[in-house]
């Protein structure tokens, strides 16, 4: 599924991570090693601390099925992965991975049924609630892929505060002005998708 596309890179203040909440909730494309386990993606490819994965990413869906064991859940090219923190309510507890109440949704729980071919792949990732701010910057730093129209809409709807927090922007390594991005002029018209990389800088005070 992976295709060559232009890369837009933004350098932003950390607080601007909230501007990406709609994008990360609705989902973005992300390049992965197909055939790898979820644990491999989170702990090796994304280099997340295993304790963080165990304690914070407590609700996971792979292809709309709640995951109990990240060691056995395998990513396919084209999979959809959703990551969430602990959820309230009975159903929140029911969806928790390996949770006491997981039997209550036993019919939809994720289970591997066949071998998965390995190789380059691309999945759709969704980040919910606490994961939006905790994992969003990590995925954005690695680079996410969005449809061109979605990228243009995102850039066009950002307010001046967003651009004030943007210290640098480049397209395929060449500087591009925010004004051009807002008007959609900085993004190539050809191609259906854009890769977005964001480097979040810590606030100085």
């Amino acid at each position, binding site marked *: 599924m992976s295709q060559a596309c232009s890369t837009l890179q933004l350098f932003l203040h950390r607080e601007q991570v909230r501007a990406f909440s709609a994008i990360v909730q609705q989902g973005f494309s992300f390049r992965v090693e197909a055939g790898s386990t979820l644990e491999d993606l989170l702990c090796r490819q994304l280099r997340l601390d295993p304790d963080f994965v165990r304690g914070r990413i407590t609700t996971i869906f792979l292809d709309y099925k709640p995951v109990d064991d990240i060691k056995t859940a395998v990513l396919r090219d084209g999979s959809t992965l959703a990551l969430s923190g602990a959820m*309230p309510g009975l159903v929140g507890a029911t969806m928790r991975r390996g949770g006491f109440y997981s039997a209550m949704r036993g019919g939809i729980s994720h289970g591997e049924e066949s071998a998965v071919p390995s190789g380059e792949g691309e999945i759709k990732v969704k980040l919910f*609630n606490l994961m939006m701010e905790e994992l969003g910057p990590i995925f954005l730093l690695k680079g996410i892929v969005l449809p061109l129209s979605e990228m243009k809409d995102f850039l066009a709807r950002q307010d001046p505060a967003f651009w004030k927090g943007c210290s640098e922007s480049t397209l395929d390594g060449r500087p591009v002005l925010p004004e051009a991005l807002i008007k959609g002029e900085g993004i190539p018209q050809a191609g259906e998708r854009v890769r977005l990389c964001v480097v979040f800088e810590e606030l100085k005070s």
Partner: protein
Amino acid sequence: MDKILRIDMGAQGGPKMTTEPVGEYLGLGGRATTSLIVNKEVHPLAHPLGAENKLVISPGMLSGSTGAMTGRLSVGCKSPLTGTIKESNAGGQAAQVLARLGYAAIILEGKPEGDELYKIFINKDGVKISVDNSLKLLDNYPLVEKLRGEYGDKPAYVTIGSAGERQLLAASIACTDPELRPTRHCGRGGVGAVMGSKKVKAIILDDSGLKHRTPVNPEKYRDANRKFVEGLRKHPVTGEGLPAYGTNVLTNVLNEAGGYPTYNFKTGVFPNGAKISGEAQAELEVKRGGSATHGCHRGCVIQCSGIFNDAEGNYVTKQPEYETVWSHGGNCGIDDLDVIARLDYMDDNIGVDTIEMGATIGVAMDAGLAEFGDGAAAIRLVEEVAKGTPLGRILGCGAEITGKVFGVEKVPVVKGQAIPAYDPRPIQGIGVTYATSTQGADHTAGYAIATNILKVGGDVDPLKTEGQVALSRDLQIATAAIDSTGMCLFIAFAIMDQPETFQALLDMLNAFYGTNLTGDDVVALGKKVLSAERDFNKRAGFTAQHDRLPRFFYTDPIAPHNQTFSVSDEEMDQVFNW
């Protein structure tokens, strides 16, 4: 809380009140008090809107103290919506104030002749019942505003809107929040219609001059409360997720699980779910100068509510909860938070249950009264309820009646009460609770996810299929117990994961009452309450055949998992086999 206030609204010569010792209900609270009284005193075949029914209002065991999360108010009666026993509870200030006034319960009984409308004022000096026909057909917001003009900003107000006066079966009872807005509702089961049948428009509770209730052992109570609060604050759900996003944080997750009932339960995924998620809602609330973090009563440390403003920054409503956003949102195909907030306000103002109302609009859309996704049409339908038109009266009586009147085959109700925001086909365990609850379909009937800590029913293997029935049983027992303490059910998350937080809760109860309650005692209380409720329902004519989901859940698979509900009747009948 050593006395019960009993008011015979139908007494000759006008309402007659008596105060009696709390007696056998000493040390109980909330759902335990309401259900035990209703089971003992209400004839199970009584007409719910007749003189024989009683409306019992009770604060929790620790309400009125300095303890955190102690502010739930329970209301019990025979439900006009379900015909079963009913306990419906809400936050707000009322429980705290009623407890400080010393009442373990208020019992409204009898039924007045004529059209006079009453208000009841209670303070430290006593009780005053008076006729006030100027309140007739006022909805909750203007009603509270008018009452504040007379009684001021100190009291807590317990009121019904026009829906309650009209005795619509989805009518709720409103309790004011700390800002004196009528936003917290005992919503389910038509309890507002029962209050309306007693011709009581408002109960004004004023604890001026009274202090917090004093524990038997104040020092131990303070210490246990501190540990309890610490437990709530350090847990990721009660300390982070709920304060940041509210209960609507569940929209994205349920949608992703394919368990989000959409278009009147036709599919399990709402394509525009992210537009009405808790995350989107919180962002919008903050951007507009509202708040995504707010407590429904003083003493709440979770703060799962919020303030929803319009684009100009004007207050619209409190933060709509997940079930409300679902019922008026995805269930009706509506993806506009402003429309949903408007509907939430209208429901609170008229005084109807937001779950029942949204489910009803979904059924009405299936009937062709409006198109799915048409927010303006949904608002028009709720306006019919506000006006009390014939159509509005039908809609205000809930999903089942609306489905019957308009010939809709698939109506999502159990025992006449609308199924809430979690589809029981992909999440079969919750279907067991919907079907077998003593209350009609109710997600909160099996909500206290602390059964592992409470050891309700011993050690259940949750990975076995039959575990679903056992889990539902245990959850219902645990929930009945927590409901009886008057604690907010959301404390269950911290209790589930942190044994020391459960111990802190037990320590609070024991320090307050000077008792030695154990986890087993809490479980026994839950069983006692459920047994009383089952007994009432049995005498009211309910059998195992009523403990079933509507047929279409067994026959119509739901996308994306294409599952039907498959727990057998035989298994279902084992839920209350203890």
